[in-house]
């Protein structure tokens, strides 16, 4: 369903281990393989601490995996150093969860937006004002906002500024780490509309981290479900409601409160807490919370198998 020639970035066997106390090892990402296509959105969902952000940070070179490679434009970006690494940052940008804390509160909006452009000498300092206005208008904010500070703006406006800054360098890929979860639903909707509009106009690839399945299905082309550092299911975005197969994806889906749901039914939820990634069971990572757990699940680690075009599941049931 995705054209291989549109493949823009590929993560191959990415593993990240962190040393923990008492000689233990915490595996934050375990053999993650994901493909990003041009102009498409990949949504990464999972509970807190499952390694979603750890993985996305590799794409923007904020961290390096212990093993595996990330191929972008024919080269492994995890091996880049010095000036090459710096130049590569222009192509992959990031939007953080809380723009109020990720920007310098003493900088004016125009400085915030134009800083990356100045760093790469794309514009002269004298052109700053003009460029800032242009970028603000692109994210549907009044151009005069360039003279404001972050604290003079609402949460939704700040997130628009963060998007304007990320887009300033015209990157091919943007990573958004829970970019809307601090916002009200009505504001969230307008931000998603903006993101999808910009994506259509500019053909940007988006990696979106999220834990709201309702939100992710509204605009992702493919969705990857992550659990304790493992990708357990990858599927086309429109499939998440009806066709998700993995027991964990189903459990996530069952715990969503939806205004269209059947209110007479009892809400289902997994009772137990997420186990510590320090002592991972040898078999399926989900086996001790799964209600369909079989003998084989406790011994053998399931691998991703394709069950339909563009739909892969790592579960012994399939």
């Amino acid at each position, binding site marked *: 369903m995705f054209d291989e020639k549109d493949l823009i970035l590929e993560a191959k066997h990415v593993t990240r281990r962190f040393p923990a106390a008492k000689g233990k090892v915490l595996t934050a990402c375990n053999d993650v393989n994901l493909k990003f296509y041009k102009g498409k959105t990949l949504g990464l969902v999972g509970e*807190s601490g499952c390694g979603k952000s750890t993985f996305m940070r590799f794409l923007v070179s904020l961290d390096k995996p212990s093993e595996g490679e990330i191929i972008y434009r024919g080269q492994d970006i995890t091996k880049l150093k010095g000036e090459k690494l710096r130049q590569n940052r222009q192509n992959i940008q990031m939007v953080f969860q809380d723009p109020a804390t990720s920007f310098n509160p003493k900088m004016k909006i125009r400085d915030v937006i134009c800083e990356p452009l100045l760093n790469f000498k794309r514009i002269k300092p004298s052109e700053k004002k003009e460029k800032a206005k242009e970028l603000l208008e692109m994210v549907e904010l009044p151009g005069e906002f360039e003279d404001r500070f972050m604290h003079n703006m609402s949460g939704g406006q700040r997130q628009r500024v963060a998007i304007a800054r990320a887009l300033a360098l015209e990157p091919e890929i943007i990573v958004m780490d829970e970019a809307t979860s601090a916002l009200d639903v*009505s504001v969230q909707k307008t931000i998603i*509309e903006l993101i999808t509009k910009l994506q259509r106009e500019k053909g940007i690839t988006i990696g979106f981290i999220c834990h709201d399945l309702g939100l992710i299905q*509204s605009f*992702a082309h493919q969705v990857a479900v992550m659990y304790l550092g493992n990708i357990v299911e990858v599927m086309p*975005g429109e499939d998440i409601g*009806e066709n998700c197969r993995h027991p964990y994806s189903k459990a996530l889906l*069952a715990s969503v409160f939806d205004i269209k*749901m059947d209110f007479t039914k009892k809400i289902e*939820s997994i009772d137990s807490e997420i186990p510590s990634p320090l002592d991972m069971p040898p078999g399926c990572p989900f086996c001790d919370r799964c209600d369909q757990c079989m003998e084989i699940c406790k011994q053998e680690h399931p691998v991703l198998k394709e069950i339909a075009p563009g739909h892969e599941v790592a579960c012994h049931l399939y």
Partner: protein
Amino acid sequence: MAMLEVNNITISYGDRPTVKDFSMTLEPGKICSLVGESGSGKTTVIRAIFGLLPGGGKVTEGDILFEGESLLSYKKDQWRKLRGSDISMIFQDSGAMMNPTKRVGAAFTEYIRTHENISKAAATKKGIEMLERMRLPSGDNVMRSYPFQLSGGMRQRVGIAMGMTYQPKLLLADEPTSALDVTTQAQIVRQMMELRENYGTSIIIVTHNLGVAAYMSDHIIVMKNGVIEDQGDRDHMLYHSDNEYTHKLLDAVPSIGGVRYV
């Protein structure tokens, strides 16, 4: 007689009214939710009911009656008797309400012993019992932990256990699930529903998640800029309301199988 009556209150910080002409009534065993965007005054309302308005905040007009008695004239020691026994509150992050340098057990027993004249050992036992009733496995372990050692969902359950120790008639919950994952949110919502089934507790929940509000409540109040914009039962709010703002909020909720932008 309604258990809680809020009659046309206006709440001001300084000279500026934040909440204007707000009224609601709550019968025993009912759940009511306040929804609306940030800054619409939801939290201010329940803080006023609990007598916890931050400095400068005051109820300038109207009255709040709990079981027929006006709460506005309460003195400090009357509040102390009421809070935690007849009315209690759960905050957005229960970890932040506990002293970070004290173990959960120390905070919990202190709380129990301000309400009841019992020994430390008996208070600890009572605490463990409450934690286990809230489905926290190995309550004694939790009592020995510091708040930061617990996950968000566990901390929230400790908060509910504390709030429910004296089986209050009214539980106020200020965004109790907003900081949690979907799976943990489902657990907490289910537990709050069980409180009503088991103890007949009335609940006022502040949330911006319309799905949670619709699932839990008998009555939903939509607030906008400090005034009630729309209210009604679930069926009315979801399907029959003709209020424009309610529609706008409902349309914005992402839903499985709903609108796709791509």
